[in-house]
C-alpha cells in the first residue's frame, strides 16, 4: 500500500468444474477444468485500481501490485490493520460432495430425463440435458485486517424438450440450481419435471399468438420473480444509485411500490443457489429488507458504493471470478408472500394474460424501462385460464409496474438463474408468489 491507496485487497480464487451434456440420449460433451487467479484492488476515495493475473509466482504478484500502486491517483495512504486469524465459511450443505460423484452417475441421471422426453410424445423431437458442478474457494485479505475464506459448491442441471410441427419448433425447459450436495440430485423429481417441460413445449407449439395491447397480467410464482429482479433489484444496487443513475435514487423511506409489495434480498439461506455467507470483498452477507409494504427500506451497497453514498456496505460485493472487480449485486431476491389465494387472483380477473412461466429479460436502470418474454402464457377469460398463447413480451417501466401490483399470492417459490452485470455473471435466485399487475403493455403478434 505504498503510495496513494487508502485501501488494499488481495482476492485469491480457485474454481474446479466438471460438466457433462446429453443430446437425444448420447453423451456429446464432457469437460473438466481448474481455473486459478489473483486480483489486487486498491482504492483511494472512490477511485479504484484493479489488476489480476493467473500467474501464481511471487515475482508476478509483486509486479502486479507495483503497477496497481503506480496507477492510483489522488488518495492519501491509511494504516494497515493487523491481519485477523483466518475464518472460514460455507453456505453449501454437503452430505455428498458432488465432485466425488462419477461422471457416469451424472450421465445415468440425465439419461433418465432424456429418454423419458424422447418417448413422451411424437411431437417431442429433441431432448437436451446437462449437469454441471463446481467448487469455488475464495480467500480475501485486506488492509482492514480481513482474512476470510469461503467455499461454495454448486450443482446445476438443465433439461430442454423441443416440440416440432412442420416448420415450427417450441421448447420447454427447467434449470434448477442448488448449493446442496448430490443428495439434491438423488431426491429431485426429474421425471415429473421433465414431463412438465414436454407439456409446455407441446402446449406452445399448438398455441396461437398472444394479443398486443395494455391489459391486466397475472405472473406465476417462482421464475416470474425475474421481473422484480431486473426491473427493481438492479435499480436498487449502489452501482446505479451511488452515481445517481437509478430511477430509485434518493427514494429511501418513500413509496416505490403499492402497499401489498414487500421484498427482500437474503444471501443467508443455507443451501440456496444464490447464497453466500462471505461476499467477494470479505464482508458478512445479509438478509436485507428492500421494500416493506411499498416503502423503499434499503439499497444494496458494496464498499465502493458505501464510499460514494456515505453509508455502510451491506455485504453484497460480488464478482463472477478474479477477472472482475467486485460491485453491488443481488443474491436470493424475492417478493414476499401476500394474503391472496392464487386461484382467487385468476378468478377475480375478467380478461388478461396469465404468464405461467417467464423467460429472461433486460432493463435500463436509468429509465426503468424493461422487457421480458413469457415462456408459457395463457389468456384469462371470465376469471378462468383459457387458451395458451405464445410470443408474449411484457414491456414497461419498473417504477410504474411496482405501483401497479394490486394482488400478491401466498405461494412464494424461488428459482435459480444467472445474472449478468458489470462484475460478470453470478448465480442468483429470483422468486415471488403469484402476483397481478393491473396493466402492462403486452407485445404480441395479434392486434
Amino acid at each position, binding site marked *: 500500500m505504498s503510495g496513494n491507496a487508502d485501501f488494499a485487497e488481495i482476492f485469491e480464487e480457485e474454481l474446479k468444474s466438471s460438466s457433462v451434456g446429453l443430446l437425444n440420449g448420447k453423451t456429446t460433451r464432457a469437460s473438466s477444468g481448474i481455473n486459478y487467479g489473483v486480483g489486487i484492488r486498491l482504492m483511494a476515495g472512490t477511485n479504484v485500481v484493479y489488476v489480476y493475473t493467473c500467474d*501464481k509466482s511471487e515475482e508476478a504478484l509483486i509486479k502486479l501490485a507495483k503497477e496497481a500502486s503506480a496507477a492510483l491517483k489522488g488518495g492519501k495512504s491509511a494504516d494497515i490493520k493487523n491481519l485477523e486469524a483466518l475464518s472460514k465459511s460455507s453456505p453449501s450443505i454437503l452430505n455428498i460432495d458432488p465432485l466425488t460423484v462419477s461422471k457416469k452417475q451424472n450421465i445415468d441421471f440425465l439419461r433418465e430425463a432424456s429418454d423419458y422426453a424422447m418417448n413422451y410424445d411424437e411431437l417431442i423431437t429433441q431432448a437436451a440435458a446437462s449437469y454441471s458442478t463446481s467448487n469455488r474457494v475464495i480467500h480475501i485479505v485486506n488492509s482492514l485486517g480481513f482474512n476470510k475464506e469461503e467455499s461454495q459448491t454448486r450443482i446445476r442441471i438443465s433439461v430442454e424438450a423441443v416440440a416440432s410441427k412442420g416448420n415450427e419448433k417450441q421448447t420447454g425447459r427447467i434449470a434448477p440450481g442448488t448449493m446442496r450436495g448430490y443428495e439434491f440430485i438423488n431426491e429431485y423429481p426429474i421425471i415429473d419435471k421433465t414431463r412438465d417441460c414436454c407439456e409446455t413445449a407441446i402446449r406452445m407449439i399448438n398455441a396461437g399468438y398472444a394479443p398486443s395491447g395494455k391489459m391486466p397480467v397475472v405472473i406465476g410464482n417462482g421464475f416470474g420473480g425475474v421481473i422484480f429482479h431486473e426491473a427493481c433489484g438492479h435499480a436498487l444496487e449502489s452501482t446505479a444509485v451511488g452515481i445517481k443513475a437509478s430511477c430509485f435514487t434518493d427514494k429511501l423511506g418513500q413509496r416505490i411500490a403499492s402497499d401489498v409489495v414487500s421484498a427482500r434480498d437474503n444471501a443467508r439461506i443455507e443451501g440456496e443457489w444464490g447464497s453466500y455467507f462471505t461476499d467477494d470483498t470479505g464482508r458478512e452477507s445479509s438478509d436485507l429488507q428492500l421494500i416493506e409494504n411499498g416503502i423503499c427500506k434499503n439499497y444494496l451497497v458494496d464498499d465502493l458504493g458505501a464510499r460514494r453514498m456515505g453509508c455502510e456496505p451491506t455485504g453484497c460485493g460480488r464478482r463472477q471470478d478474479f477477472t472482475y472487480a467486485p460491485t453491488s449485486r443481488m443474491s436470493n431476491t424475492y417478493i414476499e408472500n401476500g394474503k391472496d389465494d392464487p386461484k382467487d387472483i385468476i378468478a377475480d380477473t375478467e380478461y388478461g394474460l396469465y404468464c405461467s412461466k417467464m423467460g429472461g429479460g433486460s432493463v435500463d436502470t436509468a429509465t426503468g424501462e424493461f422487457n421480458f418474454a413469457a415462456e408459457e402464457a395463457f389468456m384469462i377469460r371470465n376469471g378462468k385460464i383459457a387458451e395458451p398463447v405464445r410470443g408474449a413480451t411484457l414491456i414497461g417501466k419498473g417504477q410504474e409496474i411496482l405501483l401497479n401490483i394490486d394482488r400478491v399470492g401466498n405461494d412464494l417459490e424461488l428459482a435459480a438463474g444467472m445474472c449478468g452485470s458489470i462484475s460478470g455473471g453470478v448465480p442468483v435466485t429470483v422468486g415471488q408468489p403469484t402476483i397481478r399487475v393491473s396493466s402492462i403493455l403486452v407485445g404480441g403478434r395479434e392486434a
Partner: protein
Amino acid sequence: MDIEFQKKYIKDLIDKAIEYGFEEAEACFMSSSSMEINILNGEVSSYENSTMQGVGFRGKKNGQMGGSFTSSPDEDGMNFMLKTAMENCEVLDDEDEEFIYCDPDHAHLESIQLSGTYDKNTYDKFASVGLKLEKDILALSPLIKAVDYLSVSCGTGPSVSVNSKGLYSYKDSDYISIFAEARAEKDGVVKTGGHYWFGNDIDKFDHDKFLSKLQKKLLSKFGGSSVESGEYKVIFDSEAFVSLLSTFMSNFSSYSMQKGLSLLAGKEGEVIASDLFTMREEPMYDKALLKFPFDSEGVLTKSKALIDKGVFVKALYNLKTAHKAGTESTGNGFKGAFSAPVGVGITNVVITPGEKDFDALCKWIKDGIYLTELNGLHAGVNKISGDFSLFCEGFLIKDGKISRPVEQITVADNFYDVLKKIIATGSDTIAVPEGKGEYFCPSVVISKMNISGDLEEEGEA
C-alpha cells in the same frame, strides 16, 4: 509472455499424451494482457490491468475426444488435464467423430496482426482521451446530466496450438475500444444513449465524430410517444439489423442444423430470402480490422456467400459437422477460449449494399418506422422458430421524413419472414463489431412488420 515456454509446454503435453495412451492429441496455449480505464465525474474512477493464460487440451481415444483445461501451466496442471480428458473419453458415446487435423501443405500457420502502435496505450494516454471525451460530452447540451459509463480499453495476446499430426499455428493481434453511455433529462423524462469506437491506434480515434454520433443518438430521443398498433413499413438502422441478424446467426451453423435446432437444415440451395438480399462471410475482408486466414482447427478460411440473391448457398462447417454431412469444412471451426471446445463460428460478414442513401429510402417508403434499437434480444426471441417480440426504439417516418421519436413499442415478427420481406438495402454501409469480427451492413428496409404500441386514437401513421 514467454512464447518459447508456451510452445515447449504444449509440445511436451502432446508427447506425454501419446505416451499416456491417447491416439491423437492437440493443445493450445492462449495468453492475453489487457488494460481498461473508466472515467466518472472528471476522474479516472477505475483502472484495470491483467495478464491471463490458460491451456486447453483435447485427446482422442477409441473414437471419442475428451477435453480438459487449466490456467496453471505446470506439471500438476499437465497431469490433471491428461487424467480428466481420459476420463471424459471413457464416458462419451458421441456418434459424430471429432478430428485432429493437419494439412501437410499448410502445417505451419501464422497470423500476426499487431498494429505496432500498442505501446502508445499507456494509462496517461487513455486517461487524457477519456477525460476529454467525458468533458466534451457533458458540454454538448445542458440536457446531458451525466456520463454514467465511459471506458477506454485495449488488449493483445498470442495463441499457439500444436497437435500430434504436425500442426503448428500461431496468431496474435491487438485492439482498442472506447465506449460511452450518457444520460440526459428534459422535463422530468430521462433518456440514455451510448456510442462506441473500435480500432487499433489510439491516435486514429475521431473525437469529434464520436461526439456528434452520441449527441444524435441521445438527444433525438426526446419528445417521443408510442404509436397505434398495426403493420408498418420498417427501415432498420444498420446496428439494429446486425443485432437481429447476429442473434439468429447460429441457425446458419451446421452444428445447429445437425442437432435439429435450425429450420435451415436441408435448405441449402433453396430460396430463403428476398432476391435483393446477399450476405457473405469474408474472413479476409480488406476493410475489416481483424482478418482470419485459418480457423482453430488449422483449416484455411475462405470467402463465401451464405445467402446469394435470396438463395441459401451453404451452411458453416467445422471438421466434425462436415464429416457427418459428407462435405468439407468451410474453415469455421473456432473455439472462443482455451477452456472451450471447438464449435462453429463466423468471422466478418458483409451485406451487399443497395443504391439509395438513407434519405432516399425514407422518401421512397413515405410512411413507416425507422428502428434504431432492439432490446431484450437474449430473451424475447425463439432462436429455433425465429419468432421474436422485442421492445424497441426508433422514429416515425411521415411523408418521407423523420417526424418524431417512438417509444414504448414492440416489434413482433419471425426472422425467416423478415428475410423474405426485405425490399431494399441502403448505400449507407457501416462496420458494426460483433462476435470475433465485424458486420458490414447498410440500412435494411422491410415491407411490413407488426408493431404494438399503446396509442389508441391519435390518427398517426
